[in-house]
Each structure stands twice: as structure tokens, then as C-alpha cells.
């Protein structure tokens, strides 16, 4: 897994590539925490390079979303989600909890 982060005026863009599993998901959780600890709660997660995400990774997304949505201060928006990953989100009923958009440009434009 590789993660890159870019801070925009109105949101933070996180790009994740490769596998998010029990080995790598703590690193993604740590990055979300760093962003939120800095008082920024509008986050775009670009999933275009995401090849695989296990339940451990899905919970990282849910936990970040819980924090961001608290007090209506922001949210995590998912961009460019592959059908297979969307399938996993759908199976466990996580789809309604996230806005999912076509690409990072559209996602960044939401904020």
C-alpha cells in the first residue's frame, strides 16, 4: 500500500494504492488521524489505485467517517471506487454512509 496526501484549501486529498488489509490499514488510520487532529474533517479518498480492501480497511473508512461527520463538521468522500470494492461496501450496507463520486476532481469540487 502507498498513500499520498495533498492539502487543498477546502479539503484534504488522500490517494491510496495497492492493498489495504490488516497489515496496512493501521497506516491509513494513522493518516486520517493526523488530518483530523489538525482540525480538518473534509477528506477525499481517491480509490482509483486501490486494488483490495478487507474488512479491517473498511472499518478504518467507517471510523474516519464517524469522526468527520460528528458535529456536521465534514465528511469522507470516496472517489473512483472500483466495482469489486463497491460490491464489498454494498454487501455490508456501508454504501449509504458515504458519498461516492466518479473521480477526485468531482469529489474535491463538493467542498
Amino acid at each position, binding site marked *: 500500500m502507498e498513500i499520498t496526501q495533498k492539502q487543498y484549501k477546502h479539503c484534504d486529498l488522500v490517494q491510496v494504492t495497492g*492493498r489495504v*488489509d*490488516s*497489515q496496512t490499514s493501521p497506516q491509513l488510520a494513522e493518516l486520517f488521524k493526523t488530518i483530523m487532529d489538525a482540525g480538518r474533517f473534509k477528506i477525499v479518498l481517491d480509490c482509483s489505485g486501490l486494488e*483490495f480492501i*478487507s*474488512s*479491517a480497511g*473498511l*472499518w478504518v473508512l*467507517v*471510523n474516519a*467517517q*464517524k469522526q468527520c*461527520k460528528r458535529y456536521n463538521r465534514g465528511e469522507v468522500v470516496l472517489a473512483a471506487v472500483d*466495482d*469489486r470494492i463497491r*460490491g*464489498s461496501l454494498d*454487501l*455490508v*450496507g*456501508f454504501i*449509504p*454512509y458515504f458519498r461516492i463520486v466518479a473521480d477526485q476532481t468531482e469529489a474535491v469540487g463538493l467542498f
Partner: protein
Amino acid sequence: MTTYPATFASLASICSQVRQAASVAGFDQQSVYEIELAVDEACANIIEHSYGAEGLGDIRCDCLESPDSFTIILQDTGCCFNPEDVPEPDLVSPVEKRHEGGLGLFFMRQGMDEVHFEPCEGSGTRLTMVRNKKRKTR
């Protein structure tokens, strides 16, 4: 049969072995992904629940293909795992009210047509997961 240390760092290698074998067995990309997810979740459960922590044993992984099905056998030497002890996941409560965890076995059962656990001689568990090549639509 390939043996891996029971660590989270092994997940990518175990999944790679299974992905390759499932592709050779003729599954499409979506099915390969579902099989990979089942195996990743199964191995993470072995590490967390059978062994209770990382680095306390091995995971042996074997993939078998028949004309009708694809079978994965995962074997550990940890504690016996009883799937009946695992509560059904909560898939209906609002997401923010759900408790973390509990989706591993669910993804295993969704991705595979048969999932069974049996105690090994001595110690540990043998997990056999079968995916039929022609699958009824769920």
C-alpha cells in the same frame, strides 16, 4: 502446500498465491476478488483468534482445482476455532451505531459456497473453503 508465518505481513503473499490459482482455474476478476477477500479474512481471523497474536505459528495454504470447483485449505496450529461462537454481523443498524469487527466470517461465507472448520489432530484448525465454478446467483 505452502507455509507462511502467521503474520499480517503474510496476507499479501497468501492472497497472491490464491489469486493466481483462482485465475488459472478460470474465475473472472469479480470472482477472484471475492475468493481473495474470503482468504484474507480467514487468515486475519487465524492470526487474531486461533493464535491470538502475530508470529505465534504458521498458516499452511493449499489450493485444489477440480472440473467443478476450487478448494482452499488453510491450516493452523493455534486454538480450535468454533464458528458458532461468532455472532451474526449487524448489517441493518445505522453504520455509526455498529460495533467494529465481525465481518470476516460473513465475507468468507459470501465469497465461497462452502466454509467448514474442523479440528486438526494435535492442535489447530483446518479450514476448507470451496467455491463452485458455476455459482447460483445470490
